[in-house]
């Protein structure tokens, strides 16, 4: 089937046009002062780079990291046991559980956020003043991305050779030690891909922080959104490139950790 090599070319061109060209355009925009993408009045400027020193950026980066790390930790604490219990349960129809995991994702994500917002504003919960807090943003992020953590862990646990656990049991190793020495280390690849799948959208999203945070929880995504809203494409482009580089660095580091993932 080697003769079909040529079929990759149109898609390659498409990717270059929509991935590489925009990145180059953004990079060029960082050195200018323009009104939106109107290049007619463009002048050379390093303002965007000067603004990178602004403390609000470090605050937003710190908030993103804080929200994403806590989200990942809570997702592991809630998701790992669920994946484990389901995988090791004697229930026959396990595919039903998988279905139950996917089903929430078929509801519109924006409407789900709005529903949480309505719930947080009911008389019973209004006293807690949840809207506009980090806690509420983290909570909603967790409930939104939890399936992305449960899925890979569950898949790894299902594929695991149960004979190893049986063997450990037969050798008289206590259950908790079997878990720590065998089950958990073997399921780490699931945990790490789940972590990546939760961490990236949690750190760079802006829908949840915008709606649940009501402008009080400012993540890097919110910062980028406001900068573009103010028509500052130069500083906005720099921030976007910065986020892209950070993401690629995180992904690169994690693939070094877990070995090159197979396609």
């Amino acid at each position, binding site marked *: 089937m080697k003769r079909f090599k040529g079929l990759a070319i149109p898609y390659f061109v498409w990717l270059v046009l929509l991935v590489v060209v925009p990145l180059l355009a953004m990079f060029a925009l960082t050195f200018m002062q323009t009104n939106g993408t109107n290049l007619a009045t463009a002048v050379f400027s390093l303002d965007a780079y000067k603004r990178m020193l602004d403390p609000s950026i470090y605050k937003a980066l710190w908030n993103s990291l804080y929200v994403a790390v806590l989200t990942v930790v809570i997702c592991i604490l809630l998701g790992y046991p669920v994946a484990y219990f389901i995988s090791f349960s004697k229930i026959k129809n396990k595919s039903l559980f998988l279905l139950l995991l996917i089903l929430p994702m*078929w509801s519109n994500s924006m409407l789900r956020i709005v529903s949480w917002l309505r719930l947080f504003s009911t008389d019973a919960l209004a006293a807690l003043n949840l809207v506009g807090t980090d806690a509420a943003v983290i909570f909603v992020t967790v409930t939104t991305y939890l399936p992305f953590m449960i899925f890979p862990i569950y898949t790894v646990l299902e594929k695991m050779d149960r004979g190893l656990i049986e063997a450990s049991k037969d050798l008289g190793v206590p259950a908790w030690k079997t878990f720590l020495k065998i089950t958990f280390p073997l399921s780490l690849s699931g945990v790490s891909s789940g972590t990546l799948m939760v961490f990236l959208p949690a750190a760079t999203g802006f829908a949840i922080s915008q709606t649940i945070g009501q402008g009080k929880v400012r993540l890097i995504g919110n910062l980028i959104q406001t900068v573009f809203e103010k028509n500052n494409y130069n500083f906005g482009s720099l921030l976007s490139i910065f986020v892209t580089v950070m993401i690629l660095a995180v992904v690169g580091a994690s693939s070094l950790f877990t070995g090159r993932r197979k396609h």
Partner: protein
Amino acid sequence: MLVKNSWKNKLVGILQALFVVFVFSLMYMPIFIIIYQSFNKTANSISPLSWGGFTFDNYIEIFTNRQLYTTILDSLLVSLWTTFVATIIGLFASIGINALSRKARKAMDALNDIPMLNSEIVTGISLMIIFSLLKPLIPGIFGFTSMFVAHIFFTVPYVILMILPKLEQTDETLFEAARDLGCSPASALFKVVIPSLGTAILMGALIAFTLSIDDFVISFYTQGNGFSNFSNYVYSSYTKKNFSAGSYAFNALLTFVTLGIVLFISLKTNKKGKEKK
């Protein structure tokens, strides 16, 4: 020993089940609220979630609220076309990528990963920049065209992710056999290779539709000229406080329909499995 521990095991089992139910209820809470609100007469009242009585009015609103049904139709238009086109592009791109040499393959994989890994907001903005640079050439680009291109862009990598591994497992001798029996390369591809990818193609199409219909951020930056999608309608109408309770009804309807289809399929496959036994 087993008998002695049985009550303990039972207790552990119950606690485990309770934990699973608790976590699932966290994920399902918004779905329950959406369904509850879809039948609630006072879904839009100032005191949130207060029950004002049972009604089907919200469901009727889907067909009477012009703004709502326009965005729903826009959403479906973009998502159905995206599913169709992205699946085809993804299929042929996968066949091409599969044929590449190791080195070219590596570069292609890396490039194909970027739309999946990069933050949605950066993807949305970079597409918006490209479209605004093209705007002097194509004045009406913002709207259906921009959103359609954007949705194809971010869904194709997922389609490839579904199809390519399956393609790698496909036995190349099947293709060779078809060639030896006198098939042209193209007809061997269409008659032998592509049919063997059936489920993977279906999965790819399903994931493309799911991602497209739910998208908020990328559509936020590529909407325009009065063309938007459901997520953005919910966002903007909620912030502008002219939110239609018909949104709950539409979403609930979608949940019921997908649940129905899925239950139907799983019942059917269950039956088949039993018959086989």
